């Protein structure tokens, strides 16, 4: 059985103006108390028998590399995990010193994820990122030297002023650096409500431009031997991210820290969003849970389909009405009894997800789970 633990680290040096994550730039003095609270939450969960041994642990943020490496190590020590657990830490390239990476390595971290975004200076500036392009090969080299053979880079396309050539250059740079990553997450810049970016329509990316860049990304990465793992993720064989796959397979995980999300057996819950409230709740011996929902029956089946549709596993062909027309339109391919999105279909996954039905004719012998819980 797979089981994941996600640890949210909400601290950032600087808030990027497209970011809608739960992050903070001015509460670094609370770091120590926050780490203690995470450990306390973990210990309470262990005592309550709520944690299985994790097959994957993921430190995400925010900026996990804002935490001193020993603080991160203390949290990781509190996470019960299997011997071969995948342990990922997100890290800004400018933070990726050999010392830090060595410390991560020795505390049990197995995988690094660098927030590269772009290798083109004016694009980085437009995104509000503070690192210089040179820090990227340096970080990749340091990771390799520290013994990390599982590395991801996060990329973002669609910043204001970015051209198709800029994006192409970023892709080629990332693939050509020594210590090139086995996993690439390439995200279309998304305008999230409430962000400074949302308030500035002049910088909003155009869907058609974004679509073209996505198609180009898939072509470049596929040519380099990567295979799509999910809409925005590609990996070389054997380099898939176990933790992310858990999400896409409706798997079970517990989130630790402010705003972290958890899922067990159709119960989804999430912690309070701000770190002050999180610390206050844990210090008071309360659960930091903000809210929860029970996803059962048809909704759960639909959720599973929706997640699976974003991956090469696809969905049972019967879950998509008029699937033959979608094949004709070039949005979907049939793989036996499964329907899998084409590159064009991936770009329209939202609309296609809205077509999904959980009560479609259920095929036999399909890959993955073909039967769904009975409708309520």
């Amino acid at each position: 059985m797979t089981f994941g633990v996600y640890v949210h680290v909400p601290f950032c040096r600087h808030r990027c103006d497209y970011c809608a994550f739960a992050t903070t730039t001015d509460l670094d003095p609370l770091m120590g108390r926050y780490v203690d609270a995470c450990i306390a939450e973990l210990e309470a969960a262990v005592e309550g028998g709520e944690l299985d041994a994790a097959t994957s642990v993921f430190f995400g943020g925010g900026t996990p590399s804002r935490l001193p490496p020993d603080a991160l190590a203390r949290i990781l020590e509190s996470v019960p995990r299997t011997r071969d657990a995948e342990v990922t830490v997100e890290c800004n390239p400018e933070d990726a010193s050999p010392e830090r990476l060595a410390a991560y390595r020795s505390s049990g971290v197995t995988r690094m994820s660098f927030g590269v975004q772009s290798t083109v200076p004016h694009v980085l500036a437009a995104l509000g990122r503070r690192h210089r392009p040179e820090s990227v090969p340096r970080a990749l080299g340091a990771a390799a030297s520290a013994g990390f053979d599982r590395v991801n880079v996060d990329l973002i396309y669609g910043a204001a002023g970015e051209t198709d050539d800029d994006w192409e250059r970023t892709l080629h740079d990332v693939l050509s650096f020594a210590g090139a990553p086995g996993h690439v997450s390439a995200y279309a810049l998304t305008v999230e409500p409430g962000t400074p970016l949302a308030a500035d329509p002049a910088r909003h990316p155009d869907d058609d431009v974004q679509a073209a860049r996505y198609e180009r990304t898939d072509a470049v990465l596929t040519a380099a031997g990567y295979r799509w793992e999910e809409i925005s993720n590609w990996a070389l064989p054997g380099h898939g991210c176990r933790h992310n796959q858990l999400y896409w397979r409706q798997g079970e995980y517990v989130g630790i820290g402010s705003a972290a999300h958890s899922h067990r057996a159709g119960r989804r819950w999430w912690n309070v969003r701000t770190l002050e409230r999180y610390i206050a709740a844990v210090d008071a011996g309360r659960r930091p849970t903000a809210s929860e929902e029970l996803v059962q029956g048809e909704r759960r089946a639909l959720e599973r389909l929706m997640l699976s549709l974003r991956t090469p596993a696809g969905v049972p062909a019967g879950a998509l009405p008029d699937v033959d027309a979608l094949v004709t339109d070039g949005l979907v391919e049939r793989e036996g009894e499964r329907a899998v999105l084409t590159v064009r279909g991936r770009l329209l996954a939202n609309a296609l997800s809205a077509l999904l039905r959980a009560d479609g004719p259920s095929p036999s012998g399909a890959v993955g789970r073909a039967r769904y819980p009975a409708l309520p």
Partner: protein
Amino acid sequence: MCPVDGGFAGPHYDRRTVSASGVPAPGKVPSDRIRNFSIISHVDHGKSTLSDRILELTGAVDPRLMREQYLDSMDIERERGITIKAQNVRVVYRDHILHLIDTPGHVDFGYEVSRSLAACEGAVLLVDASQGIQAQTLANGYQAIEHDLEIVAVLNKIDLPAADPDRCAKEIEQVLGIGAGEILRISAKTGEGVAELLDAIVERIPAPRGDRSAPLRALIFDSAYDQYRGVVSSVRVVDGVLGTRSRLRFMQAGAVHDVEEIGVRAPDPTKADELGPGEVGYLIAGIKNVGEARSGETVTDASAPAGEPLAGYRDPKPMVFCGLYPIDGDELPELRDALDKLKLNDASFTYEPESSHALGFGFRCGFLGLLHMEIIRERLEREFDLSLIATAPSVEYRAYLTDGIVVEVDNPTDLPDASRIDHVDEPLLTATILTPSEYTGTVMELCQSRRADMQRMEYLSPERMELVYTIPLAEVVVDFFDQLKSRTKGYASLDYEPSGYATANLARVDLLINHVPVDAFSTIVHRSQADVYGRRMAEKLRELIPRQLFDVPIQAAVGGRVVARETVKARRKDVLAKCYGGDITRKRKLLERQKEGKKRMKSIGRVEVPQEAFISALRLED
């Protein structure tokens, strides 16, 4: 009166008794003391103000209770400054009983006007001295003359600086043959000349001539539905006596009803025991539907019936049709209920269920004209809180098929296949336009662009021109009046009457979305305009239809031949790039909302079209 007005609710009826000193009670008034008249006037020429002044001057309404447009009871009437339902009021002046019969003020209600005139011996022709006589006033004036009514011509608003009573008087003399010297000059606003007008009414308009001992014959010239009392009809006794104990036969409807109540409006409803020849009042006879007491109906005594009904009755015939659909399909029962209720009060519109592939279930409705259509729709939305889509207005075509069958087509989708059609006739109007002569050119241009044939053209005065055209009704229902107004700075006026049918080179334009015809957009137009119309609609739809998962062709076809093609390019991207730290809930909820949103879309084949796109496309008016 619509149900919500409740104008006849309870206490009104019992509050007053007829006891005005020196005035004979209803039923006992000698005919020579009665004067029945209506006011013929154009919108805004001051009819309602004059009515208000008359009510004041004769003491009919307590000055403290006076409000403007006293006789216009519907909100829509007050807002638009027009009279839709005929009203009547009984006032006393110089020992005479005057019955003022207020007539509807719009060309759509021409038949109602004629019934109101039939209840009178005279008409006050009221003309704004700053504007001169308008087409409809003239048409109604001719109609009054045909009914042998005595015309008392009056120039109103003489207090206005722009008033030009001499010119207007000459015009009236020219077109109606009324001596300029006989034309009164008043200001209904200030009251100047109103007493003299009442004097003229008493002196010039003949008293009614009726035979008190003859079998009862009374003319119904209006009926309204009251939720407490049922149908309340306005009635003019011609011969005999209408008494509370009568058992009445409605000669056109062929029904018999017992009188529940009769009375006069003074202007508050006031019960009476009887109404004699020449008198005007109201009648309540336990009728639940105005369709059974239509304008023009003759009422007689069931036990001693008259031999012949009064002349002039006509079944109202709808001229303009459109489909009305609830925007929310779940509101269909409410729409049906609302139509049923309005029908109680307005026998002149028709409706029957129809279904549209694009719009779902709704009703095909027939109206007397465009204003009538607008009013009904507005009342449905306002009084019954419905949101409606209306399809483009259509007229009733006659398709002559090659096998000799004739089909009446009021919905373009019902037009048989072109191969089966020998020819199609369309309804025509005789339209009379009065315009300041400086606009003659632009008016003629407009008429020519609408396939109109000029019949006559005449100067009423050096400044004013009368143009008479034969014009297809279909050309008038599409914003003709608005165009006329805007081209003449609002000075031209229009009147029209049906003028038979004529064969025309007509074609149906269909709009196809992804090769599927969308019935709601089908229209019958003249072949010369078909391509232009098709192109315009196709362009419009391209803008309105959201991008889909695939390219969507939009085609306009005339008789099966594609005349325009547009493409809604496929949407390329909508996917959410990432899930935040395992936050699946947010993504799922977004997709659940999206799924919910799909329910508000209409599917045309595989294309999802939001309701708003239909509404916007059908609003195409330029």
